[in-house]
């Protein structure tokens, strides 16, 4: 179909294809973890085999939301917390697209928490990257849903009385079929995980630990990072819900104490994606909806029969 020639095009993707040749330069602070995500993504994307034209990166609002300004692909910088609903509809409308959503921990686990839960539950075929810096960056350092209990900020002067959210466990309970955690300081692992996430058929959630040197000095405590797949101490089956759950519980506890476990925590290749489920019940067309509008031979249904029932 003429409108979307780019989709499904088989060609060698250049290593730098997703790197814009010129401005804008990222406006992130020096040392910000967001650079790490951008870098990992730029490296992973060409290996996934999708062209920039086939890729739609939908972001929320926050320092993290600017990600798509620095990546050459189609991009929709939406509003705070709403990247997921925009992204999943774009994927439903045109499944040929590689759809990635990204945003901060405030964006994704706070204001957009409801969408996170439901997108995972529905297992939409897309990738979701959460820049988890345990702080609100763009609004200048307020406590976020992942900030540790007791975290002091201008809006929580006595320290937060709340336990942080457990994004991995929440994701698992909600139904995500690929769950991983990586960190900006581990570029190789990050790249590998992002690639896997994008290749996964279903909702792939990557909790991406990023440091915010400007507002969250405690970010330093993120070292050492241990890769659960590389270390013999953490032997578990990523396909087993129960074992994954235990590992998540462990890492989400130890995070507070200073050791961080990263890697794949849960992978379910058997669960059909939402698109497949919808197709199975006859509520999702076989070919991309978006192509209809360019298909001169397509027979548009009209309301004739519907009106007849009212005679």
């Amino acid at each position, binding site marked *: 179909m003429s409108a979307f020639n780019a989709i499904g095009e088989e060609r060698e993707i250049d290593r730098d294809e997703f790197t814009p040749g010129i401005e804008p330069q990222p406006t992130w602070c020096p040392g910000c973890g967001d650079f790490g995500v951008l870098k990992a993504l730029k490296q992973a994307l060409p290996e996934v085999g999708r062209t920039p034209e086939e890729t739609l990166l939908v972001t929320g609002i926050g320092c993290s939301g600017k990600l798509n300004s620095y990546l050459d692909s189609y991009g929709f910088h939406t509003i705070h917390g709403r990247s997921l609903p925009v992204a999943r*509809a774009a*994927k439903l409308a045109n499944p040929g697209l590689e759809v990635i959503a990204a945003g901060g921990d405030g964006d994704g686990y706070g204001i957009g928490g409801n969408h996170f839960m439901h997108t995972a539950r529905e297992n939409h075929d897309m990738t979701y990257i959460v820049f988890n810096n345990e702080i609100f960056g763009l609004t200048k350092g307020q406590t976020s849903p992942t900030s540790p209990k007791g975290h002091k900020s201008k809006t929580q002067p006595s320290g937060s009385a709340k336990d942080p959210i457990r994004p991995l466990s929440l994701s698992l309970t909600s139904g995500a079929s690929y769950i991983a955690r990586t960190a900006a300081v581990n570029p190789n692992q990050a790249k590998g995980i992002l690639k896997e996430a994008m290749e996964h058929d279903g909702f792939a959630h990557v909790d991406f630990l990023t440091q915010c040197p400007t507002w969250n000095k405690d970010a330093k405590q993120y070292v050492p990072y241990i890769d659960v797949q590389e270390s013999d101490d953490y032997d578990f089956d990523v396909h087993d819900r129960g074992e994954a759950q235990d590992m998540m519980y462990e890492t989400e506890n130890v995070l507070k104490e200073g050791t961080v476990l990263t890697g794949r925590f849960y992978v379910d290749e058997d669960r059909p994606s939402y698109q497949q489920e919808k197709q199975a019940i006859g509520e999702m067309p076989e070919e991309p909806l978006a192509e209809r*509008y360019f298909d001169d031979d397509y027979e*548009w249904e*009209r309301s004739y029969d519907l009106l007849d029932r009212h005679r």
Partner: protein
Amino acid sequence: MADNELIWRIAGGSGDGIDSTSQNFAKALMRSGLNVFTHRHYPSRIRGGHTYVEIRASDEVVDSRGDGYNFLLALGDSFARNPKENAYYGNEEIKPLSENLDDLREGGIIIYDSGLLDASEIPDFEERAEENDWHVFGIDLRSMAREHGREVMRNTAGVGVTAALLEMDLDEIENLMENAMPEKILEPNLTILHDAYDMINEEYEFEHDLRIPTGEHDEDQVLISGSNGVAYGALDEGCRFIAGYPMTPWTDVFTIMSQHLPKFGGISEQVEDEIAAAALALGASHAGVKAMSGSSGGGFALMSEPLGLAEMSETPIVLVEAMRAGPSTGLPTKPEQGDLEHILYTSQGDSCRVVFAPGTPQEAYEQTRTAFQMAYDYQIPAIVVIDQKLSGENQNVPASAFDREPNPSLGPTLTEAELEDAPHDPSGKFKRFSHDDPEDDGVRPRSLPGQKGGRFLVTGNEHNESGHIEEDPDNRITQMDLRMKKLESIREHLDSDPESSNQTYFGPDEAEYGIVTWGSSQGAVREAVERLNDQGHSVKAIGVSDLMPFAEKEVTEFLESVDEALVVEMNATAQFRGLTQRELGQFGEKLTSLLKYDGNPFEPAEIVEGFEIQIAGGTDAPSANTRLEPAVSD
């Protein structure tokens, strides 16, 4: 008031089968050649509670519920579901007979179920019946239903009695029952229908003045609601994606779309909340599908931010706002036109959207199509405003009035070949928000994700030509002006063809006085204007649908041509009058409001009365249910 009209009210409790019975009966009346209008009244309860449906049928045009009614079929309520309960009164609030008497006209007919209640026990009933010359038929519908089927089939017995009293043929009713009922319950229902019919003819002497007119059946007529109009308009216009969250009365449109979209090759999504719903519509539209969402007041409030994002990102979407009485959850099942300002101005920044308020099911169809055209041709959100009244009312319209030519156009979208020649920035991004405006209408053609050479960024922040965030003042002014320019272009577009104007006029071309209204109050106004002119007044009316961009030229011309005008709307703060004065910058001294916000739509008589009081000097109080708001200079 049509001289020769039947307004049949079937009343009882929710669960008495009032909806299905009335739908069938209304269709039967339409098929006997009459014009039909139905009005539904129900409380915000799932079970129980007093509900009724009125069917108005006449050989003249009917597009409002009319004033009062002249035929009551009073069914019982929970008794049927609880056979152990012997007394109907005392432990149930629903009094299908006594609660409905206030609006019953003189000479009217009453059928009540003597198997359930004894009318003589109702205080004053007999006196009132005599005073008003009501013809009362206590008929044991319950036994009739029990004998051949189940007690819930009392509604069918009631229809049989109605048909006999009105000397109607049973053919159409049978026909419709055959289409609507599963085999198992069809037989007993048909038996009950006939028994009731024969019993009345054989055993009762009846004499009454109510005669319903007969007409020629016009095969072309269909009985549809405003929600049907919106949904079918969207489908014919090529909408193939809907996302929503249930909320009365928007749920009607959402349900109809969800039932049909899969058959039309489209997608319907019931999602977690209204913010998501509107955001999904945006995502689908961005990817190149005609998409819609919608809600009622509270849910629409949640859509405020995605709505603004659609304005800023110039993503076409259509939203439906089906109003109900507010503030907050208000009266969930009752109509009001109180969300106007909310719809026009909600979301941050200057409003840049299109708003249409159709007045009838047919207009709902047409204007939903126009809304999609404006949205996609101008890359702007378009809102279709209906309300609980319009969404639930059924009216007959000729099916041939619908232009069902499909429209798959996504508006100005470039092909990949065209994108090759389109302007790009040095990093290869397509200048989708180019400062150059090829048609001088504010619209810059877009590309769709997936297209080669069309990469751009879109953001809710102010942005430059390729979509990057940009705060430069000159760029800001250019982009802002181009976006706002679209509204001007849309106005010109809509004005360019007076033939297809969305405004509706009633009454003589030249008249001393005017009535101005908007949206669903239009039907009652039309009828009031007819009556006022019959009574010797000189009045005309305009029903306004184009709220943003406002139908400036048409409303100005109308108001200049009259001495004074009454603005009729269902809210307490005269929102539409405010809009008119603000948009036109004049006429403050000419406009008086007639307001109603008790949860019920206007009856034509109330408008007639409001008008007369105003013309007579504006001193008397209007009826208890409406309120006059004087002109500013008063």
